[in-house]
């Protein structure tokens, strides 16, 4: 159990709804859900994931902490906003889905090899290093995430697109040598650290 997770379990005991309200982005909306089912029926991904928003909100109220935070459903949200425009209670469902995903990730409870999570982590680490996205490195890291063989295969398959992007100056092969970044890197890292500190304090997360 991660330190964050033990602290949360200790603090909220059986009141998972309160935990969500205090710590998940837009979590205070969950109690407004009237279980009408419109979001579940409106989601284009609906048939392909286990827990619709409707179901997740009910599970939160039922205190199913482990099931909710380890669910991979909120990671599948494509931000189409279909549910948000139809929800009769105007819950910001999309934002809650992302809030849940990010909270589960923070506590270390999100499913390990969930592709969205993997990519998001990769993206963030790439960006946080220099304050700029190194697209070449990001792409390669993504191709090779499942090992050398599958990486080479994917890279070969995408070759023509890659070359096209180089030609159109959308991809710089020289980025492999380290790539461009912000001038004041130290300042940038300090900003990120401070932002995280403020955010954690707001949510009551120990660091």
């Amino acid at each position, binding site marked *: 159990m991660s330190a964050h997770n033990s602290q949360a379990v200790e603090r909220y005991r059986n009141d998972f709804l309160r935990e969500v309200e205090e710590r998940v982005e837009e979590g205070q909306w969950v109690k407004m859900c009237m279980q009408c089912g419109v979001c579940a*029926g409106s989601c284009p991904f609906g*048939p392909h994931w286990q827990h619709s928003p*409707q179901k997740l909100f009910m599970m939160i109220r039922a205190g199913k902490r482990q099931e909710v935070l380890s669910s991979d459903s909120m990671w599948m949200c494509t931000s189409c906003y279909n549910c948000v425009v139809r929800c009769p209670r105007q819950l910001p469902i999309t934002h809650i889905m992302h809030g849940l995903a990010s909270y589960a990730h923070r506590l270390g409870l999100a499913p390990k090899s969930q592709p969205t999570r993997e990519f998001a982590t990769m993206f963030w680490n790439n960006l946080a290093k220099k304050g700029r996205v190194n697209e070449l490195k990001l792409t390669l890291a993504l191709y090779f995430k499942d090992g050398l063989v599958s990486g080479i295969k994917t890279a070969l398959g995408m070759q023509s697109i890659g070359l096209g992007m180089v030609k159109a100056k959308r991809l710089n092969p020289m980025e492999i040598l380290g790539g461009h970044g912000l001038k004041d890197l130290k300042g940038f890292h300090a900003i990120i650290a401070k932002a995280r500190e403020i955010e954690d304090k707001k949510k009551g997360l120990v660091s």
Partner: protein
Amino acid sequence: MKASIATNQTILVVGGGIGGMTAALEAAECGKQVILVEKNPTLGGRTALLYRYFPKMCHPTCGLEINLRRLKGNRRLRVLTQAEVTEVSGRNGDYTVKLKLSPRYVNENCTACGECALAVSGQMPNPYDYGLSQIKLAYLPHAMAYPQRYVLDPAIIGTADAEKANSACKYGAIDLAMKEETIELKVGSVIWATGWKPYDAAKIQPYGYDRFANVITSVEFERLADPHGPTGGKLLRPSDGAPAKNIAFIQCAGSRDENHLRHCSRICCMASLKQTQYVREAYGDDCKSTIYYIDIRAIDRFEDFYRKVQQDPTVGFVKSKVARIAQNENGSLILHGVDTEGYHRYATEHDLVVLAIGMEPEANGIKLPDDIVVDSSGFIEGSKDGGQFGAGAAASPTDVNRSVQSATAAALRAIQVVHKTAAVEVA
């Protein structure tokens, strides 16, 4: 023309539905002078357009007939139809009200023989069938209309039809020279019993009311079931006239929805439960009604009615707000959603979909006096100076029974206001 036809001790009731008629009668029977104004050519309001009443399943004729009899026998009550309030000024106990009277083009000589209607050929969508049928430009609104007098629609004026109607009338009842009039009244208190209207179903985009012929509203379904209605009481699909035997009722269509009406309309659960019994009445066991609902709100004694309908094997319940509707080649509709009891995804086909449409205050859209306080949905609470009151479905979404109760309460309050006025005038 300007005329003063009342005093400060008069009570004005705006709206001649079951609520307004009740408020007017209760006050008049207590000895007060009452003026009842109705914007349509007939009293009766929306109840006159229902096929049967829950919970007893009697016809609306009963209730209306009794009220009309009381009304005809009362000298203190004056009824003005085709009359609309355009302005209220003054204060509690001393209001001046401006009324616009639209011409009927038919005077008191009319015997309702109907010769004028036979003579004219022009037609318009029938507002008393929610536009599902056509009505002649010379018409009697409906069988229960009060006054029992024909009306010429303004569109007829200046056409050959107007002359035809005029010469067909054997009683000299048609007066094509009638003009719009404005009159002014002095009254002590005003009761707003302006009622409700169905929410605009086309705004509920995923249900396709504006795209799919076989998606209709509950008020239209009342007309289909009514023997005086557009199909002679047969439950037929608008697209092809085929019998609709597998019908879906969608609850909270517009209601309880921050994107549409934020309130619960309170009567639509009962209305749909009632309407399943129209289906049974039409087809016996050879039919299926399915109610899609968030939760059924059959308040207090209506619970018994709900229980009874639950026992009916032709009626099914799905706890789910339908997410969207699609139409297939033969005009049938596929309802998509997820039910809350088990979270099962469904895509179910029905012949006809009835939207249990929400009730919106009819007064949304008209300009009320500045002093009037309305709630967040536009239902009328009353005036700040305590001399005007809301009643019936104008004050909150209600069934007939509660509309009448609230109208009686409003009558009592208005009587208290004019009593005070009387005391001041004597002193």
